[in-house]
């Protein structure tokens, strides 16, 4: 009975919708945005929402000719809370599309729920490799990156261009760290390098003295993967331990993120890292983006800001492609997967067959300009996919990078 009624109601609704002039019948396009607004990662959440907000303001809060309403929900960086909020956004607020999220485990927690609810969700930040490799989701569209993506070319760069042969890795001990180190190790060792020691520090470590004293002094360089509060402390302690003068410091993108650079001093200068974005990127699109962002929010945009800014545009492109009919979820999802942004601030972006962006990877060096630290781009690898130069089928045969894969053969 209930079903019959709802079918009748649906038919009636469609009839009414057809009878009305186009445009008049639709409410706003609703975007549900998940980000940590409280807790340890609140500042990152702020950068994320700023990015999306800025795109919307620049475009008059319009997407494909329809008004846009953004509903931001606080995940507190916790998977359980994120799940509850996801459900609230879909079932109570009836959003048409979801975006956001931070931390790999939140990404893994949300994906099955997103599939169950059947509403498209963009992952601009959550980078866990397997979300677009061994455990893909139908309704998740990753327009961000995979953790290992920038480090595949970086490992090759360090071995071939910088010429380092023996590298010690020190990384935060969780999947993001494992995948970053794994990606680096794979290509670095394939090009003749050797990882001679792997050190792991728990998430949230701020005192690195016990780890720094263990570092093998006969290496050529140190690869450090830090995040958030660890990134704030590590370079200074590295310098104080007398290591900076001896062993050049390399890093994953978050080690020298624009998000931490303002809090660092000369100790960070010279650090080389790889990421899909740099605020110092010398293109007209990025220069405009950085200037506008600084005017608005009084700080330099981080990669979190950029990917969420581009997320606004991403949704817009897809909505335009379906003529604003975001209610047709299947078509909208297909359109989201087909989006190509040729001139995002971070460069051209489009998805590969597995649903992860093919985009530029920038090798960046921290330099001081007018008293500020910037990630000067010293080399660009254009159009890098999550599988780099490997065949996807071959690549997917290996397990996902973790603490013990690839094994440390030269330790």
């Amino acid at each position, binding site marked *: 009975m209930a079903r019959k009624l709802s079918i009748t109601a649906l038919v009636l609704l469609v009839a009414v919708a057809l009878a009305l002039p186009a445009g008049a019948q639709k409410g706003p396009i609703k975007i549900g945005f998940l980000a940590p607004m409280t807790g340890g990662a609140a500042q990152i959440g702020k950068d994320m929402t700023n990015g999306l907000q800025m795109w919307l303001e620049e475009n008059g809060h319009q997407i494909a000719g329809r008004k846009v309403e953004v509903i931001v929900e606080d995940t507190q960086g*916790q998977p359980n809370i994120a799940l*509850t909020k996801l*459900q609230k956004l879909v079932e*109570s607020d009836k959003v048409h599309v979801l975006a956001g999220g931070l931390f790999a485990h939140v990404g*893994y927690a949300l994906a099955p729920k997103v599939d169950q609810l059947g509403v498209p969700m963009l992952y601009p930040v959550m980078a866990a490799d397997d979300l677009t490799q061994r455990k893909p989701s139908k309704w998740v569209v990753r327009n961000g990156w995979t953790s290992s993506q920038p480090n595949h070319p970086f490992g090759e760069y360090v071995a071939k261009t910088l010429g380092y042969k023996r590298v010690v890795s020190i990384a935060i001990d969780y*999947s993001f760290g494992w995948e970053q180190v794994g990606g680096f190790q794979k290509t670095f060792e394939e090009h003749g390098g050797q990882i001679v020691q792997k050190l792991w520090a728990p998430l949230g470590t701020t005192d690195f003295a016990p780890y720094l004293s263990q570092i093998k002094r006969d290496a050529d360089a140190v690869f450090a993967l830090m995040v958030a509060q660890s990134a704030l402390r590590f370079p200074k302690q590295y310098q104080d331990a007398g290591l900076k003068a001896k062993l050049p410091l390399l890093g994953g993108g978050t080690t020298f993120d624009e998000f931490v650079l303002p809090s660092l001093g000369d100790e960070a200068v010279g650090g080389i890292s790889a990421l899909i974005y740099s605020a110092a990127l010398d293109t007209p699109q990025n220069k405009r983006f950085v200037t506008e962002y600084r005017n608005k929010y009084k700080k330099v945009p981080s990669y979190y800001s950029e990917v969420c800014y581009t997320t606004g545009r991403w949704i817009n492109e897809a909505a335009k492609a379906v003529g604003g009919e975001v209610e047709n979820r299947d078509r909208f999802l297909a359109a989201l997967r087909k989006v190509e942004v040729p001139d995002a601030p971070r460069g051209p972006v489009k998805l590969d067959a597995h649903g992860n962006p093919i985009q530029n990877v920038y090798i960046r060096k921290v330099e001081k300009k007018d008293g500020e630290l910037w990630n000067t781009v010293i080399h660009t690898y254009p159009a890098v996919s999550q599988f780099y130069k490997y065949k996807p089928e071959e690549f997917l045969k290996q397990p996902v990078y973790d*603490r013990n894969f690839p094994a440390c053969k030269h330790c």
Partner: protein
Amino acid sequence: METFVRRAPRAAALVAAVVLLALPPFVSSFMLSLLTQALVWAMLAMSLDLLLGFTGLASLGHAAYLALGAYSVGILTTRHGANFWTALAVGVLLAALGAAIFGLVALRATGVYFLMITLALGMTVWGLANRWVSVTSGDNGISGVPRPRGLPFDVSGALPFYYLVLTAFVVAFVILWTVVRSPFGKTLVGIRESESRMRTLGYHVWLHKYVGFVIAGAGGGFAGVFWAYYNGFVSPADSELATSVEILLMVALGGRGTLFGPALGAFVIVLLKNVVSIYTHRWLLILGVVYIGTIVYAPEGIIGMARDWLKARGRAQLRPAPSP
């Protein structure tokens, strides 16, 4: 007047029962999920109340049993296709086993030392969840836990699942209620009031505490089983210290030593957290004010405050716990 005072708690319990039973089909699906969640937390808070309220042992490691129950479900259902009854049995037994081991260590201490030891033991479970990657999937957690299978009726929908959790809640409540009203429960209260006197009277104090500790742990595991099914996901966050603290706060807010109070506390905190945070990002501030207000103005919790109010009205003595 006196009848009003005597009847008020029963009336409140009756209203709560009717609301929990009859309202859910009419609320939004988001509200329904919050209610389900609140029921799970209520089970956790009630099981902790057996220790904190009735035995006078403040444990800061209750999340460990939640995690043991939840991980049992996560691992058994996603990797071995286990049905509901297997997962439930293993979850509860594992949590009870965990409590039986932890109890041996923790019950050597009392007061603040007990608090610290339970905290440390709770962290060992958190450590395992994080580092024993081959079993727990580390901090990525275990996703894709299906809804319970092997039950005579289909609980894949949100509403049937709610009623399943409600049934579990009633079972947990009845068991705990029976325990605290039994001579065993009365002995626990006696130990809370004066350990030395109970010992002089010839009671085996340690054994009573130990059995209470294991029952509370099993209760935590029982709730953990439903928590995993509810979220469809298990992660080390379930075993964090913050989770243990939150359960403790629920008990304190609702009123320890009343069973009914901790359940109420769980509902208040779950709803506050999820509803207030929709309206303001400063919701932590509001939660903080509620906690401080409770400690300053209602140290015996919401139930204690209501009892004092009724007492003042009726000038009649009430039993410490209102009837369900």
